[in-house]
């Protein structure tokens, strides 16, 4: 056959040149499966003492072992760090860890993640061990340095085995995934649910409770949900501008708020307290300071909060001067205060500003000094926020802050 005749005519001229090159590829040495180059190297090594060779092998062992332990130490360290950080005190939730759930969707995800982590962990252990064993076992040694190993091209049985086993794993994983997707995403809304419309803005959150007639911003209040009388909160998620994502890790996974689209999610916190989170989808300059604060109230506290929020704004005549500033400057283009002519919706509703513990979507504490600074120079607190510097006189500014202080 033509094919068999031309077997060895690979760049003949060049190979024959290299025969005389310093690397000295001599074709005579093929008898013992060895290339000329290796022969030469081995020859050189044989000239040296044998101890150098064994030393070299030992150090290699050390290097490999050091590397493996190094990787393990780092992994364990990372896990420990996570563990320490997860140790929250009851009632206070300073770390929004996904492994510290306080609500059914987050809890289902945690259970599910344990399953996934177990499977992936097992795969990791098996493959890691196999890899490490292969690398440690089949290293070149002095004993085998002078001959090529057996040339194995493959094995259909083995290939079949390591195709079928992963397929089975994927099927099992998928069934588990499908169950949890359905349970979280297609959960029916009970009649007792609290409905909240959350609207993402650059860079703050607007919350509307249509059935309760409450409008607020940045700090969400929801009732705790008793398993025997569940009062979950169901969200309708909208966006006024760019994409955002609602993420309070201890209560649920994240769901995006996308303009021209209505998304849904739900939570049913089992515990009262403050839960932290923040916008997870990059939404512009101040994405980082679009923080989420969810207050989970007892049913009585929640009812009281709703009652307070439904009151019209304080119209105390003592602060009429400050109210006048609010009503005659650009404030009311963006902000609403119930009972005044301010009905803007571009910025947060200020009717009960003082019922919130933070301003600027959680970027600063709600104190008179911070409030004053925020009105005077928002960039000092949150550079790039869409709140303009109001450039008021000191007197006006003081009056305005005093007025805002009355909006309880």
């Amino acid at each position, binding site marked *: 056959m033509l094919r068999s005749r031309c077997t060895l005519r690979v760049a003949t001229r060049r190979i024959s040149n*290299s025969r005389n090159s310093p690397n000295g590829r001599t074709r005579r040495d093929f008898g013992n499966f060895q290339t000329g180059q290796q022969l030469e190297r081995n020859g050189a090594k044989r000239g040296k003492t044998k101890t150098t060779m064994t030393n070299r092998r030992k150090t290699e062992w050390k290097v490999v072992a050091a590397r493996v332990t190094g990787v393990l130490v780092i992994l364990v360290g990372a896990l420990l760090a996570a563990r320490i950080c997860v140790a929250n005190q009851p009632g206070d939730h300073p770390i929004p860890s996904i492994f510290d759930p306080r609500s059914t969707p987050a809890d289902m995800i945690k259970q599910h993640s344990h399953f996934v982590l177990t499977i992936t962990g097992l795969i990791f252990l098996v493959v890691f061990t196999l890899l490490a064993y292969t690398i440690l076992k089949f290293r*070149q040694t002095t004993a085998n340095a002078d001959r090529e190993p057996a040339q194995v091209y493959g094995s259909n049985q083995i290939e079949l085995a390591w195709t079928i086993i992963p397929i089975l794993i994927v099927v099992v*994983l998928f069934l588990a995934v499908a169950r949890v997707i359905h349970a979280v995403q297609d959960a029916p809304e009970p009649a007792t649910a609290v409905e909240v419309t959350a609207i993402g803005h650059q860079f703050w959150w607007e919350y509307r409770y249509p059935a309760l007639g409450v409008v607020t911003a940045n700090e969400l209040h929801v009732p705790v949900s008793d398993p025997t009388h569940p009062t979950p909160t169901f969200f309708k998620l909208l966006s006024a*501008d760019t994409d955002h994502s609602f993420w309070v890790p201890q209560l649920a996974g994240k769901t995006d708020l996308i303009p021209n689209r209505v998304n849904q999610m739900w939570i049913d916190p089992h515990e009262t307290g403050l839960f932290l989170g923040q916008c997870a989808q990059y939404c512009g300059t101040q994405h980082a300071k679009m923080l989420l604060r969810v207050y989970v109230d007892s049913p009585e506290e929640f009812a009281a909060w709703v009652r307070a929020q439904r009151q019209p704004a304080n119209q105390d005549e003592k602060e009429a001067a400050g109210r006048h500033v609010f009503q005659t400057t650009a404030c009311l283009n963006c902000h609403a205060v119930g009972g005044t002519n301010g009905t803007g919706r571009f910025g947060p509703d200020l009717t009960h500003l003082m019922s919130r513990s933070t301003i600027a979507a959680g970027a600063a504490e709600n104190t008179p000094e911070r409030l004053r600074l925020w009105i005077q120079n928002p960039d000092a607190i949150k550079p790039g926020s869409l709140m303009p510097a109001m450039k008021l006189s000191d007197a006006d500014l003081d009056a305005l802050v005093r007025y805002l202080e009355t909006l309880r």
Partner: protein
Amino acid sequence: MSSDVMAIQSADVAGRSWTGVLHEWVTTVDHKRLGILYILYALIFLVIGGIEAAVIRIQLMRPNNDFVSPQVFNRMFTMHGTTMIFFVTMPVLFGFANYLVPLMIGARDMAFPRLNAFSFWLTALGGFLLYFSFVGGSGLYGAGNAPDVGWWAYAPLASRAFSPGHSSDYWTIALLVSGFGSIGTAINIIATVLCMRCPGMKLSRMPLLAWLNLVMSGMVLIAITPLSAAQIMLLVDRYLGGHFFDTQAGGSAPLWMHFFWIFGHPEVYILVIPAFAFLSEIIPVFSRKPIFGYPVMVAATVAIGLVSTSVWAHHMFTIGMNSYANGFFAITTMAVGIPTGIKIFNWIGTMWGGKIQFKVPMLFCIGFLFQFLIAGLTGIMQAAVPFDWQLTLSYFVVAHFHYVIVGGILFALFGAFYYWYPKMTGRMLSERLGKWHFWLFLIGFHLTFDVMHVPGLLGMPRRIYTYEPRPGWGILNLIVSIGALIQAIAILVFVANLIISYFKGAKAGNDPWDAWTLEWSISSPPPAYNFATVPTVASRRPLWDLKHPEDPDSRYD
């Protein structure tokens, strides 16, 4: 200038002026030179992208840091992502493909040498356009500078209303232009592999590197076209009053996501398949055995190529798709892990029973295997949709894809550098510096990216220019930043090695690794037009046949 004069000039090596050399390189259509140009170009952008990463890591070293403003930070992560994907990883992989594919299949050049040059210069223009935005991006509104919309440029953030000025236009046009370059190179690789193989080299005898680059190029054609279409639509939106993605006029934000990710996910495999290709060449040589299960490796690659075109929406599990769509993309995403797993097993099979030589290229490949295993498993975690609702958009996912791109692709690339540098320059890279590079980079990598998973689990989202002083976040981010510093030092060692070895490295000879593919049969660096006599091959390892006439591969072919 007549061709005679040219010939005399190029023959007269000693007498060439630097302008003459420059002219030769700029006008070259030689696949080897274009390959090297791609690689050098990518290395320059690697350093630039690395500096951007350093700015990011300094800013995030401690909570409420004010090293840079939010505007600058947002530009940094946008430019870092865009640069590393489009102007580092893509060109460097194309560079290696350009250099190696013709050599390995016994061809004298690519199928379309001038298209090859055109594609390179288009890609280069793309990179320069992107960076010109730093000076030219202000535009009519005086707003913006470099793009700050993230490397996905999600709608409507990239629309005129939210991204005034021209920074997003530079981003769009840079990607459009370099995309055309990528398509040109992909067509070229496909044509070369299919039409330019030397006598005897059937598709079933092709080195895996050529096979994998063939699959990669097919995927480029599938993936880059929707990206280019989306960029054109975005330009129509921005300048011709279109409303594809303009949500204020009823456009669709998810439409952009679909367009972007139907490019973006195959893209990950476009980047990783050439990395697989390097491993499939390097591991056999340093294990002294042929690749285990060659036909299965090819089939697995093709399977990855096919399945990876239907996994894109796993980037979008939080946008409110219904549970059936979420389930579909979960199972396709997990399914793509099967052929990938098969590949890992086959590499282990290759090493099994061999005698592994721990030269620097092999060290990087072994690093790849461990790290890609972890990256694959964290990928499976994110394919589990409910788990992904927590993990995605957090630092966990940032750690995951850096594990793929740095721990996987970059490690394989470093391996490729150490393996083929002797062929490209005729000099060996220093083993000593190489080992320093490897160990430093390995330590830095694990310090950075192992630890980076944790803040994500603790609720830290990505793309934030600063963060609240929550317990744990500060110290973890500090460790991550320290790791980044160690990586930077390792990269300096690498660059120093490249430069020093070019002048002082040991002479490589034709075949320093005692390898088996055709590129090692000719001088280092290879002569113009590669093969004086076009070789004829009878098996997958022509040089093995030559070195072992008593037991050639061709006997079992």
